[in-house]
């Protein structure tokens, strides 16, 4: 399961960050870390990018970038 597969309103816990290099570093700097809770808020009107809340703020990222983030849905 990866972050791009979640529907708006779904919450999940980050299991693994598959990205490499600058992308990974940037995600970490923005607080996208293993163990962190993330909630998908919205999907852009044209289907991409998505908006999530993490660490109490709103972050947007492209689906391609979200695909590299493995998550486990929390119910």
């Amino acid at each position, binding site marked *: 399961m990866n972050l791009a597969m979640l529907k708006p309103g779904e919450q999940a816990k980050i299991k693994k960050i598959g990205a490499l290099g600058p992308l990974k570093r940037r995600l970490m700097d*923005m607080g996208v870390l293993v163990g962190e809770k993330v909630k998908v808020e*919205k999907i852009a009107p044209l289907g991409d990018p998505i908006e999530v809340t993490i660490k109490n703020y709103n972050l947007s990222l492209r689906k391609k970038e979200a695909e590299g983030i493995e998550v486990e849905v929390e119910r």
Partner: protein
Amino acid sequence: MRAETDDLRFKISDFKKSEIANPQSEIRTITVAVAGNPNSGKSTLINAIAGTRLNVGNWPGVTVEKKTAIFDYEGVKIKLVDLPGTYSLSPYSQEEIIARDYLIQEKPDVIIDVVDSTNLERNLYLTMQLLELGIPVVIALNIYDEAEKKGFKFNTKLIEQMLGVKAIPTISTKNKGLDVLMKAVMEAASDTAQHTPKSINYGEDIESAAFVVESGIRNLYPTLANRYPLRWLAYKLMEGDEHISKEINLSGDGTFIEDAVRHLKLAHGSDIESLMADARYAKAAGLAREALTKPDTRKIELTEKIDRLVLNRFLGIPIFLAAMWLVFKLTFDFSKPFSDWIDEMINGPFKRWGEALLGFVNAPSWTVSLLTEGVIAGVGFVLVFVPVIFAMMFFITFLEGSGYMARAAFVMDRMMHAIGLHGKSFIPMLLGFGCNVPAIYATRTLENPRDKALTALLVPLMSCGARLPVYVLFVGVFFADHGGTVLWSLYVLGIALAVVMGMVFKRTLFKGEPPMFIMELPPYRMPSLKNLLIHTWEKGKHFLIKAGTYILAVSILIWFLLNLPWGVEHKKDSYLGRMGQVIAPAFEPLGFGNWEAASSLVSGLIAKEIVVGTMGEIYVEKKGEGAEDEKKESPTFIEDIKEIGTSFATAVKDSFVNVFSTFGFASISADEEEEDKEKGSTLKDVISTQFTPLSAYAFIAFVLLYMPCFVVAIAMKHEFGTWKWFGIAFAYQMALAWVVALVIYQGGKALGLG
């Protein structure tokens, strides 16, 4: 506004007074670097402290803006340096490298760390990295009012105890807390040893490894220990930071680093970088948990409510388009009357005064021409752009400051990404339809250099307002029955080619540079008018000084091209005409291989609407002279002054009428001057004999595509700090224009349309 200014405890006059009263102020300069996350209110804070003394430039060699200010505060000279807004000090973006290199190499006396109190945890992540540097830090808990409104309660004493630095609540939009902040800065600067932050404990494992690396450096590379903050260097070497490894270039033994991290890797996995990021965030989270109490129930915030509408699946795009339409209309409608007014004043009274003055001292006629057509017209050329640049900066700053810019990018990114651009590229591209010059400056909203350069390369394909008169002239002569369709086809051609070129550049010039769209959607905030104006003024001033000098120089150069050799009578014999003759054969396959058309195109490099004027002069030379004779009946000085005043009043009025008409309350119609009409009709007659409909269409397609005007060239140089991007734009556009016009003309002929 007034009440706020009264509350302002930094009065500009106070600073000036102390400058005079304290001769010893020369003795000591305190360098204060201001760091912070984007959207933390950092630039508002700097504006509040430094006001109009801010000096805007670029960091050497890059397009990132650098703001500095030097002023006196309580007898001490303070040099304030604004670091780029960053989320981290990791060396992966230009901004981060700049901020980090500055802090390491220049070693400022104090760092002000501007923290968004409403988003404490994430902001403290940067704070942790700043504290690692061993430079005294003063934390500004900014946007404190909003945090309080949310019901947040801070234990600042605890923050100060835990970090060993001062934490001062501030509200930079209201000038609150800034005096306390500056006092803390002065105190920290007065005794830096005393105020060096406590070293952070990232846990047993990391710290013991760092200790091993530290001793290794001290023993093997003692010079490095003096150049860098030691603990920080140890962390970086453990992380395997490529930037710093390259910089220090460990010549000899480096195995002590591997030995130190071996245990760490066994216990925590091979990715030390992630481990460090986790540790910093854990510290930040711990601190936020202890020092900040949040209310139990969270109310639905305004930002959420607005976003439900603005980012709605169905309404998102219509709202975005409406907002863009408004920005476009306001930028150009508001500024146009002022630009027109400046244009009229320069070309009317100012030229007449220049002529009269030189006539009075019996100066030779060529100096009159140089002054009026070269210098005064050149100054006019710069000034005409000022209203539109100011208006554009104002609205762009508003979009950014309010938080809508990030939403616009979010809504548009899918579409723009398809051609290799970023969601934020849409706005510069859109502004390009009005004028390419502000559009180039608007690319500064793009943080990534790749996105920014690509956007700037494609902006000139957006058909700007200056090209319209050329289209209109030819469409009127050859395509009167299908005018709308032909005009529309040109705009579509430009957009289609931008899509194609975007794809091409994505795969060639920018190959291997991964695009990223990891962007914060900050809370909506109302930017203060004062800040908007300061920001707009900074940018406008920068344009006037930096770009203005270039524009003036080029405009004088062009005067020489048109008027040399001395005593030239026919345009054909001027350098411009000769250039036209030389390059004309290149246009032969395109259907307009004559020197008149070629010279007009050369003059179009100044501004594309000049193509029409030059054609008028070249094709209708006699008529043009007659028109000039009429102008000789010049009004008196008093009449001129009156005229300047009344026409300015009209410009102000028109500007507001325009803005209101944007909302559909009124409308004004464009008025064409009688004289122009007359001249135009003669020109039209000549053109109808010189061009065929096919070659005419090839010609206007060429005008659409060939190099942007020289002001765009200067804007590109100015914005990017190098001629490189303009060089690429020039080369590809020339080639593109030639090929497209060739295809149109030869293709049309093959189809039997010629």
